[in-house]
């Protein structure tokens, strides 16, 4: 019969190293499964994977089993969460369990040691300083201070001459560093819990020119009121020169509250917009569903510059015409292509509905002039030049695209960052600082003083030993080494 209470048993269970090892292993192994089975993916992807692993016949069954066990959204499954909770409990209880012992070591007052004990330490050194005790005392004190200690002094009452002992320690609180790291992990997980329970994570696809007062949950089925409105003033993709590689995705956003625009900002990837706890990230873009840039409702924006004249902006729809100011020339926007390319016979065609390479087909007519026509391509300024030195720049097809914003509200993120900061401090103290002790014994003789040094550190003994050696050797060139 065990006379332990239930509380003690639970405590014992959570302090056991076996549990820690088991949790470490299970979390690591199940995480591996979570990287192989694609998370939150379309069923076909994982069925294909299972077909490879278990054969076509069993793929469906395997997929059903995996879904039932939560493997397709594993990191949010109840059992994975439970494991993280256990891990957290294990970490906390193990730390609390060990803390009193560490506290005893930290609080232990430093005492001078017996003369005979000087030989028992791992780091030790002996030397002799010529001259009297006062000179030697000053030298040793300098050395000990150079090592970063502020030493205590004590005198040993041996008969006749008195021995002198300096002793000091530093960095004893670094022994807590490991617990700072453990604590920081708990804080980070707490921050994550705050984020999941009180936060919001969703998206908002906002067409150019449109305003929304809500965002949508991940699954897209739930409206989440923001408490203010956000408008997409414009969206554009900028490309690197002479390349099809995107350089920037930019959304020009406005925050509207109480009918007034309170904030206007352009966002790009890596530079989100923050307002009232919500953060809007540039995450994707696309063509407004059901929108065809070639329809009459489009708003094609042109910058028209007559030869030697001022540039002026014009907005019109496909099929409509514009005139070049100061001339009798009329241009008709006959067609629009969001992604123009030419095949090998130089015939133009539209590659995709995405606005990767927008272009318009313009027919130019005027009195006494033959009709001329050609493509004006947004990304190629050469195509903007018209025969008579006039210029027509395609600025945008406004309203054709939407910007995909990721919307997040996470009150826990600062808790997570605080945890990260603690962790960084803890790591630095745990790996690069240590608890160091030193004892120096001065035994005066007739013409010299014998010096014995003993030292202890809980980390990097070799390094500490060589520092002590260097400092005491450098101190006085007169020192004659004996040890």
């Amino acid at each position, binding site marked *: 019969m065990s006379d332990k209470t239930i509380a003690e048993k639970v405590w014992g269970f959570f302090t056991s190293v076996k549990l820690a090892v088991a949790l470490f292993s299970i979390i690591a192994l199940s995480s*591996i499964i979570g*990287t192989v089975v694609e998370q939150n993916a379309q069923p076909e992807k994982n069925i294909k994977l299972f077909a490879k692993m278990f054969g076509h016949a069993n793929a469906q069954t395997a997929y059903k089993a995996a879904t039932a066990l939560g493997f397709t959204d594993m990191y949010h499954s109840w059992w994975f969460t439970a494991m993280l909770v256990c891990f957290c409990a294990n970490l906390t209880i193990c730390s609390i369990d060990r803390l009193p012992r560490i506290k005893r070591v930290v609080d232990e007052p430093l005492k001078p040691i017996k003369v005979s004990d000087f030989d028992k330490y791992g780091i030790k050194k002996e030397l002799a300083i010529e001259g009297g005790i006062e000179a030697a005392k000053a030298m040793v004190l300098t050395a000990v201070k150079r090592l970063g200690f502020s030493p205590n002094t004590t005198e040993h009452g041996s008969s006749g001459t008195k021995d002198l002992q300096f002793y000091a320690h530093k960095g004893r609180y670094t022994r807590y560093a490991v617990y700072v790291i453990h604590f920081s992990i708990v804080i980070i997980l707490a921050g994550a819990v705050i984020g999941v329970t009180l936060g919001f994570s969703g998206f908002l696809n906002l067409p150019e020119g449109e305003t929304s007062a809500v965002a949508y949950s991940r699954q897209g089925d739930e409206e989440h009121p923001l408490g203010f409105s956000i408008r997409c003033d414009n969206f554009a993709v900028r490309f690197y020169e002479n390349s099809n*590689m*995107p350089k920037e995705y930019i959304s020009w956003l406005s925050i509207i509250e109480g009918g007034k625009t309170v904030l206007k900002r352009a966002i790009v990837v890596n530079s989100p917009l923050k307002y009232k706890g919500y953060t809007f990230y540039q*995450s994707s873009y696309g063509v407004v569903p059901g929108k065809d840039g070639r329809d009459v409702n489009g708003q094609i924006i042109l910058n028209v510059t007559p030869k030697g004249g001022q540039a002026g902006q014009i907005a019109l729809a496909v099929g409509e015409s514009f005139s070049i100011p100061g001339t009798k020339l009329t241009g008709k926007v006959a067609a629009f292509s969001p992604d123009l390319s030419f095949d090998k016979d130089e015939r133009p065609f539209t590659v995709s509905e995405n606005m990767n390479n927008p272009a318009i087909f313009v027919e130019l007519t005027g009195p006494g002039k033959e009709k001329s026509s050609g493509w004006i391509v947004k990304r190629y300024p050469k195509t903007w030049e018209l025969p008579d030195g006039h210029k027509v720049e395609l600025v945008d097809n406004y309203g054709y695209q939407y910007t995909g914003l990721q919307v997040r509200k996470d009150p826990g993120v600062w808790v997570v960052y605080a945890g990260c900061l603690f962790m960084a401090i803890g790591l630095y103290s745990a790996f690069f600082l240590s608890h160091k002790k030193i004892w120096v014994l001065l035994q005066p003789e007739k013409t010299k003083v014998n010096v014995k040094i003993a030292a202890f550190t809980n980390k990097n003994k070799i390094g500490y030993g060589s520092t002590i050696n260097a400092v005491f050797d450098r101190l006085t060139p007169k020192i004659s080494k004996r040890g």
Partner: protein
Amino acid sequence: MGSPILFGIAEVGYFVAMMVYIGYFIFKNKTVGICATTVAVAAFLSQTVALVLRWVESYSLGIGRAPLTNLYESLIFFVWCLMLGYLIIEFKYKNRTFGAFITPLAGLALGFIDLTGISKEIEPLVPALQSNWLLAHVTMSFIAYAAFGLAFATGMLYLVLSTERRTESSYIFWTVAGSVFLLVLAAMGADYLKFAMMGTSPEQIRSYLFKATFRSASGPTALLSWIGAFAVIFCAWRYGYVLRRMLKSFDISLEFLEELNYKVVAVGFPIFTLGGLIFGAIWADQAWGVYWSWDPKETWSLITWLVYAFYLHARYLRGWRGNKIAVLSSIGFITVIFTYLGVNILLSGLHSYGEI
């Protein structure tokens, strides 16, 4: 001279250094040892200049970014960190015995570049990578990977020196892990030779990894490769102890290796936690709007972190020393390789900048 030529010199240099270090192993001649170091240092300097040149070249192309943004550049940087770390240890401890274990790692990484036909072009940054966190996150991650690589090398050497009985699990571990490692190196060499002879262009070499051997289109070749591989593993297990006898005369202290193993892990772990995980999370928060998303790369980083955290706890709390610790540090590096390369090759996710 442009950076590609200097990178080429460095690559050849590391392979030559590997052979000279092995020669030093066999002949135990000091002059050979000095030659090995000289070759390694020369290759390292050539690589350093090449890295700087590539950085400068990116500016002259009007792109202007640190050479750390794709698989090719990261591998080059990994090798550079690894060799820097190794050379520091060699000079600090006046001990060049495990050069023969590090240079193959460097050679393997550089060989991988040529075989997989990774793009070497200096390309502009995609929007997600345009951040100041890039430099800190990538540099620190790779310094940590290199430290873990050094721990792997010291761990393996420790196992070679400390085990002899064929039934011992640590002995089985090092012979199998070591021979698999060499087999991968050899298979890549075979790929390289085959495709160099056929004059295949880099675009076609893409994804040709192991196509000359294990994944060969011809059944018998593939089968023979597998049989050969198992034979090699068997021989390594059967005769691995010979290596120990060869190394005996070097008088490498096991305590030294153990201490070194711990030291490099103690450098790598905090750097990895801060640069890899924490900085990575902060950057992800800015770029993707989520500081942790269980993306495969993140998850594998966490697994790697757990393995090394386990290493540290086993050492401190349970007082694990010797073989067990050496095996742990080797397993740790296997997860590092998977985090770094395996995730890019086999899994999909947000972290796809390093794709082949």
